[in-house]
């Protein structure tokens, strides 16, 4: 099945079907301008439309050139991509540096049976050259490439691909049983009832933005006068007849309904068919998406921890999201962007149990002693004390006071309506709630080989980072932190966001934590101080 000898050293091209995709994509992107042309006809408007059509043509030609200039090959040691028209460039990645493989198919790709492959490497992650992107290969080729790159021994690889071919047949849902060789174990799968978390993801806000952008481009580039469209006129007349309060209520209601519907739709499209499986060769495999399908493979020995994120709304309905902290993947951004997602917004309990299955040390500990209390995702955290609490309040109220002062000044000298600063003043109690919640979120712990830190209110995150993955420590304190006796401790790591902070923690506690996290590293630099006072 995998013929390594055959695949060496010949340069291969991307799928020729990409030649169809490029023109189509560009046309879709220019849709508002083209639509405008159709609606308004060629007589009205200026030269603008012709310019944008010329631009579309240029982009199509450039896209096609990309196909002719890009080739790739896989040798026993390296993955290489050659690209560029004027400056030829060869990107070479050693195969043993491949950490993750991400296979994405957009709708159009799927219609034509294509998939985009992105190869993530560990060390050069922040420098752009470290990433390899092949846009796009045939779906079969992409799947083959994934197996080839991550499952190194060709024998194991071929069994793996047979296993995944037969994976439609369900395999047990229990944690990895040693008795089942070269198979995949399902760790989690989408449940229909999770859709209830959809409205709380707020991903619909993006849709609102996209729709607004489309409409505004239609108006400006297509010269469409919205005021002349019948239904819109009617609605506007009905709307302006209402009182101000009712108007606000209507707008809020419409927005809430629209965002909820769009968010739910987005949730279903992005996370439908979600599956998280573990392959016996030591990889985690995430597949998801109804229209755009995405398959991410993460090498398990590169997994350095997990991040549980609970945005405020999701937290209110006891939901949480789980993502991987691993080398070779961009840190997760937003609800669905990052390839490091391990579980979409789901009940907190589900996130906790998946985290337990995924974190290697915890899984071992649980199977050894069946004691399940010490999971880094559930363990109780050490609070940061009254000084940190005071700091949360001073910071929250400091910002609020600045905003208030600015609004009052604008009201006094620039004629800003008075309700702006009155509203800001009325929100003062909410700031207290925010500060208190931000303090409640703050916490840290060190349990079964993991450093755990949690922070944030609007977007509360809890990161469990393997101590072996901690490279070094940065201890920072600003002038104000120094007066409060606090520091911010950053554990630097090659995984995820590269550094994870324990914010506003007592200096002595920070040092104790760092010393315990990396044994021996700090000892030569520590001294005991008899009296408790911040050093000068």
């Amino acid at each position, binding site marked *: 099945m995998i013929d390594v000898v055959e695949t060496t050293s010949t340069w291969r091209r991307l799928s020729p079907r990409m030649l169809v995709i490029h023109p189509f994509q560009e046309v879709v992107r220019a849709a508002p301008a083209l639509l405008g042309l159709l609606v308004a006809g060629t007589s009205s408007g200026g030269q603008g439309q012709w310019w944008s059509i010329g631009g579309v043509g240029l982009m199509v030609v450039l896209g096609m050139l990309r196909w002719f200039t890009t080739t790739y090959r896989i040798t026993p040691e390296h993955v290489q991509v050659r690209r560029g028209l004027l400056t030829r460039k060869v990107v070479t990645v050693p195969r043993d540096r491949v950490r993750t493989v991400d296979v994405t198919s957009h709708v159009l790709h799927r219609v034509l049976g294509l998939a985009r492959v992105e190869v993530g490497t560990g060390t050069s992650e922040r420098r752009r050259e470290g990433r390899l992107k092949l846009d796009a290969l045939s779906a079969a080729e992409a799947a083959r490439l994934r197996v080839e790159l991550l499952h190194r021994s060709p024998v194991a690889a071929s069994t793996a691909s047979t296993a995944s071919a037969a994976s439609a047949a369900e395999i047990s849902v229990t944690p990895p049983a040693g008795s089942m060789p070269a198979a995949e174990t399902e760790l989690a799968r989408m449940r229909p009832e999770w859709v209830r978390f959809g409205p709380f993801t707020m991903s619909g806000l993006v849709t609102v933005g996209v729709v607004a952008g489309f409409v505004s481009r239609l108006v400006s580039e297509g010269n469409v006068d919205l005021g002349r469209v019948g239904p819109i006129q009617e609605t506007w007349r009905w709307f302006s007849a209402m009182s101000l309060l009712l108007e606000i209520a209507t707008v809020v209601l419409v927005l809430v309904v629209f965002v909820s519907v769009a968010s739910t739709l987005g949730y279903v499209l992005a996370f439908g068919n979600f599956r998280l499986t573990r392959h016996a060769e030591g990889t985690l495999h995430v597949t998801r998406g109804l229209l755009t399908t995405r398959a991410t493979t993460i090498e398990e020995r590169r997994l350095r921890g997990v991040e549980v994120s609970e945005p405020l709304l999701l937290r209110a309905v006891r939901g949480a999201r789980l993502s991987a902290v691993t080398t070779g993947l961009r840190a997760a951004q937003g609800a669905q962007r990052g390839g490091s997602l391990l579980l979409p917004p789901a009940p907190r309990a589900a996130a906790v149990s998946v985290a337990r299955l995924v974190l290697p040390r915890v899984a071992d500990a649980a199977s050894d002693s069946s004691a399940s209390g010490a999971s880094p995702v559930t363990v109780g955290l050490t609070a940061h004390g009254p000084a940190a609490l005071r700091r949360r309040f001073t910071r929250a109220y400091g910002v609020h006071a600045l905003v208030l002062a600015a609004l009052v000044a604008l009201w006094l000298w620039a004629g800003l309506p008075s309700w702006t600063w009155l509203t800001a003043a009325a929100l003062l109690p909410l700031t207290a709630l925010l500060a208190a919640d931000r303090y409640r979120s703050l916490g840290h712990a060190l349990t079964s080989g993991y450093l755990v830190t949690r922070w944030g209110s609007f977007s509360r995150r809890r990161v469990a980072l393997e101590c072996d993955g901690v490279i*070094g420590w940065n201890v920072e*304190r600003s002038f104000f932190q120094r007066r409060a006796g606090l520091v911010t401790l950053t554990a*630097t790591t090659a995984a995820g966001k590269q*550094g994870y902070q324990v914010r506003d923690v007592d200096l002595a506690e920070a040092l104790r934590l760092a010393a315990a996290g990396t044994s021996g*590293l700090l000892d030569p630099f520590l001294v*005991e*101080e008899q009296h408790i006072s911040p050093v000068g």
Partner: protein
Amino acid sequence: MDTPTLRSPQHRVSRTAVWYWAARAALGWLVLLAAQVVWLVADGDGDAWPVATHVTALVVTAVVAVAHVTVMPQWRYRVHRWEATSAAVFTQSGWFKQEWRIAPVSRIQTVDSERGPLEQIFRLANVTVTTASAAGPIKVSGLDRDTAQRLVADLTATAQATAGDAT
């Protein structure tokens, strides 16, 4: 109860660094002062601003500049410290925002030494130690050239001795 606290790293940077920092700061201020003088000359009639305002601004800038150029290097010299053992690199920096950085030698990826034109005049060099984490580079500036060379040699030798890719 005894509480652990960080001691300062052992070594200070080169004494010459004080002059280097002062020279660098002075150059920056000279550019600003020159710009102000040019403006004063160009605006000779005092159309935009009265001459008195120009002169006041000039004097204020000069006073701040002198204060910065004299105080900052001394202060920085007192707070910038570094230390490299066979196990770890440890630095301290900052005066308004203090920072300590610790990285184990076994996790070092690259050791760079750099000399800018101004640093060359003062026979200084800086050393940057990077790890696999983008959040963890450690920079020691204002070392004299020999110390910097020795530090680079030591660190590379120890780092090479450890196996693995240090992620």
